[in-house]
């Protein structure tokens, strides 16, 4: 099993999905536990892989190679390194917690959990595939269950949101497919193998074209302004656990793509595109912040805050230096945990009050003290309070971007102020002030919900206090990547 640990991580959820399919649909308890245990096993496997992972080694590890379509030189090629492994860990944790959070879903549970587990397979595969073709297939695999999960279990405008999400991302991945084919045909011999493709020289013009194609695919997923409008709709309509997955993992697939494919494959184009990337990053940060400030829907506010926070990832990416990269990678991880937690908390409130209108709440801090504590914690983490993980990542991203451009950094700090403004304004509208008598009967957060949040809090606090626990896994790989880009 050791030699195929990555395959096990990818396909265990699929096995779980099949198991769910063989359970009668009325045995909901059984279905839930199968799903939970499956995601638990995946987390355990990831933990086991963590012990096998060599943090000091820069290249790909635990490689699995198999022939898939020999005619086109397509391989079943898996591997991990300091960029993908933190994402795998994040996916495993978020999937497990979101699965626990899914226990509140009441209708069509069998289909829900089957699709949910399929989704996890897709996500894991996306982060672990090193063959471009395999990557594309798994990238698309994510799309399909997501479409159904939003479209069936979503809110009132779910069809619109699901179709919008699907078409947006599909349009993006179409460009990406073109890019992948371009890379494939330009390579001699034709190959999809990342380990071989990374070192090959390519013409600048070709790089620029294909970089743009990849960029569109990834930018929509991140999402980067102006491709972000699917995000608020999808988030608002999706059921809580799916929002968590969406914010926690799916958005990271875009920025992961930059790290894994765009940068090592097109180093010259990366330098060429650096200014545009930086500008898009600030626009995202500030724009997302301002729009979040204007929201009255709790979930939409968190969704736009994601746009702003993912801007910091982009900022770190645009910096093209060690600190920026570290900040971006760390921000990917921390944003997953923090925003995931915020969405869980929105869900907790929505399950009780059946509304997300921020102006309709007020004074809940009195009735729900524990909930208030959690919400305040995650809001503070999100606004980048030092000693919580969000601060470290934003600090590193800013430090990186500062070395690249001072005005960019100065402008993006507006985002930090805005984050404080919209998050604390949200806290004030929900928790503080006079208790709205309508909510006098709301029960406080329950044990299951607490269980979904506490691991995230531990991560946030742990990374915030001592970020090396995770940064040491990333640094060798990121430094190697930086060298690749700089040398070329």
């Amino acid at each position: 099993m050791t030699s195929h640990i990555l395959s096990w991580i990818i396909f265990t959820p699929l096995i779980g999905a099949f198991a769910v399919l063989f359970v009668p649909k009325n045995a909901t308890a059984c279905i839930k536990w199968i799903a939970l245990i499956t995601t638990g096993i995946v987390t355990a496997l990831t933990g086991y892989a963590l012990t096998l992972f060599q943090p000091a080694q820069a290249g790909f590890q635990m490689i699995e190679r198999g022939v898939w379509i020999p005619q086109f030189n397509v391989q079943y090629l898996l591997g991990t390194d300091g960029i993908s492994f933190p994402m795998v860990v994040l996916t495993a944790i978020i999937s497990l917690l979101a699965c626990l959070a899914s226990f509140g879903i009441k209708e069509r549970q069998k289909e829900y959990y089957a699709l949910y587990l399929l989704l996890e397979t897709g996500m894991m595969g996306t982060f672990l595939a090193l063959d471009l073709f395999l990557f594309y297939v798994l990238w698309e695999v994510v799309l399909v269950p997501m479409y159904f999960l939003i479209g069936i279990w979503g809110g009132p405008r779910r069809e619109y949101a699901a179709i919008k999400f699907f078409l947006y991302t599909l349009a993006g991945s179409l460009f990406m497919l073109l890019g992948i084919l371009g890379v494939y045909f330009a390579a001699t011999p034709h190959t999809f193998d990342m380990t071989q493709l990374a070192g090959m020289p390519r013409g600048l013009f070709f790089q620029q074209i294909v970089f743009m194609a990849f960029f569109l695919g990834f930018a929509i997923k991140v999402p980067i302004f102006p491709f972000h409008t699917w995000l608020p709709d999808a988030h608002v309509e999706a059921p809580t656990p799916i929002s968590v997955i969406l914010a926690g993992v799916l958005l990271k697939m875009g920025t992961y793509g930059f790290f894994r494919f765009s940068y090592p494959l097109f180093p010259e184009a990366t330098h060429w595109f650096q200014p545009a990337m930086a500008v898009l990053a600030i626009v995202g940060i500030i724009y997302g912040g301002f729009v979040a400030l204007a929201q009255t829907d709790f979930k939409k506010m968190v969704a736009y805050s994601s746009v702003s926070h993912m801007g910091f990832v982009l900022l770190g990416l645009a910096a093209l230096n060690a600190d920026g990269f570290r900040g971006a990678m760390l921000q990917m991880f921390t944003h997953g945990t923090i925003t995931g937690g915020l969405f869980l908390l929105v869900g907790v409130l929505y399950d009780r009050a059946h509304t997300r209108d921020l102006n309709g709440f007020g004074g809940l801090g009195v009735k729900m003290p524990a909930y208030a504590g959690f919400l305040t914690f995650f809001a503070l983490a999100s606004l980048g309070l030092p000693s919580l993980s969000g601060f470290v990542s934003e600090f590193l991203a800013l430090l990186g971007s500062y070395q690249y451009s001072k005005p960019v950094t100065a402008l993006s700090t507006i985002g930090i102020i805005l984050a404080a403004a919209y998050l604390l304004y949200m806290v004030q509208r929900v928790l503080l002030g006079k208790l709205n008598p309508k909510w006098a009967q709301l029960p406080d957060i329950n044990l299951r919900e607490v269980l979904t949040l506490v691991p995230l809090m531990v991560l946030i606090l742990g990374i915030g206090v001592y970020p090396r626990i995770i940064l040491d896994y990333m640094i060798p790989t990121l430094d190697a990547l930086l060298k690749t880009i700089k040398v070329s």
Partner: protein
Amino acid sequence: MTSDQIILVPLLPFLAFAANILAGRWLKNRAAWLSVATSSVACVIALPICWAVFQGAHFAHQGTWLMLGTVPLKFGYLMDPLSATLLFMVTIVGTLIQIYAAGYMHGDPRYSRFFAYVSLFMSAMLTLVVSDNYLLFFMAWEIMGLCSYLLIGFYFEKDSAANASLKAFLTTRIGDVGFLLGFLTLFAALGTLNFSEMNTLMAGAHGSHATLNTGLLTLAALLIFCGTIGKSAQFPLHVWLPDAMEGPTPVSALIHAATMVAAGVFLVARSFTLFMAVPNILPIVTAIGTITAFMAAFIALTQNDIKRILAYSTISQLGYMVTAMGLSGLGAGTFHLITHAFFKALLFLGAGSVIHGTHVQDIREMGGLFKKMPHTAVTFIIASLALSGVPPLSGFWSKDEILLSAFGAGNFLVFGILLLTALMTAFYMFRLIFLTFFGAARNAKVHAHESPALMTGPLWCLAVGSIVIGIPGSPFMHHWFQKFIAHMVHYPEYEPSGLVMACSIAVAILGITLAGVMYLKQKHWAAAVAKNFPLFYRLSFNKFYFDEFYAAYVVKPFNALGHVLFGFDETVIDGAVNGTGRNTLFLSEIKNWIDQYIVDGAVNFMGTAVYFLNSFVKRIQTGFVQNYLLIVFLVLVAFLILELKLA
């Protein structure tokens, strides 16, 4: 002795915080004692170390926290004269205030929560004091901001408290972002965030600016000073502090008078070598400090809320300290920081005691409380005398040092303004005292009573402190304190001047006398002044309209921009997306028409033709299985015959 136990100093209150937040429901009233106990132990641990530093020792230790590029970023503690001084002050004042709070907050439903926050604050403040680099300093700084936010909004059911907490956090956050950018700039310029390393670099570069990027350093200093402006409530970001008085009074004493707001001044003191090394920055600091000192004192003249008067007084005194820093008076500023912490904490605690005893905050409803609350009144008057600068109380010595700095530097404009501010300080403090403690009771509904010993005890301790803490910096000890601080970094020192001292004493007595005349003897004078100088009165009473200005020109545009951009999102971007969708639908409808009538037409024709032919052939299909079977069989036979014939 090893100095590593210094780590325990911030850690112990943090443990109290963790215990109170997690187990507050069971701890109930014991929460306070947990906080007080940890704080006291921290004090006991800290004081010997401080003493060692006072004797000339110097401790530092660090460990790697993060890798920046290839440079390790090390976190550690640094015990030098500056941090030892603050550590001494913070642990003592903090512990006393917490003891007081145990009495003051008695019976509050969120009692344990309160002490959790206060312990967290203590932990952060102590971390800040002992930290040896900007990043750790900033982290502690931000957590203090959080505690401030949480404690201002402690009575969050009140909308005013909720708003005040938000305002406080956001306003200071603006300064903090400047601070963040500031030390990023510093890192870019120097490659280090460590205070000691910075001091060494600055000292080495002294006189030869060529080795350092002066422009970048100036920018860094300016941005770092933004942090001070936000945290120490300097003009123009001072607006949050008066509103912060919505928090419980011990919080006002601890956070918004003695410690946290002083951290901004401490930041300048920490960065003093930087500020000294770059030109053009100190005048800005002086200007900001002077404007703040004067403006806040001027506003305090007409306020009626007991805590607000004290809040503006705090702003004004912080302005004094910043001015001192700007005039290169590191010793004077730090000295005033310490003395101010004692007497201002005392004032706030006294005010808290008054509020606790009367349940009103408006001084117009008080009066004649001296007899009913003797302990409170006496200690309050001691603190006010100290603040007004009456010798030999502590405030006199420190204020005198600051005035001397201005005088010695030859900056007579600043000297004059500071002197005027001192006059106003004495006036508004004694206006407050005369209205509160003397005269007749103006509101019959107020039934005042003296506070319990748990509260008056700390009052007396602080009163003693307010009296004696000035001694180390006074001529009686040959300005020992200033010389002690000067170990760290060299700055201009001035000979004590009798003229300055005389001016200082004169304005203090003048202010007190004026207040006495106006509020005890000739009571109609106050109204007459207000009437004759309506412009000044209104400016003062309405706090120079800062809040209104910010509301109209900052908050509103920000919100409006948010809505505009959201509208852009909804209409333009989504419009484009949905338009694409709609156009595609339209195209597909055209295609649908073609499909239906042209492509399908052809297909349907084929179908019709086949149907026509089939009407003959279909007769074979009888529907009887055995017919089919027979046909199959016969065909089989036929094939057999055929096959054999061929063979």
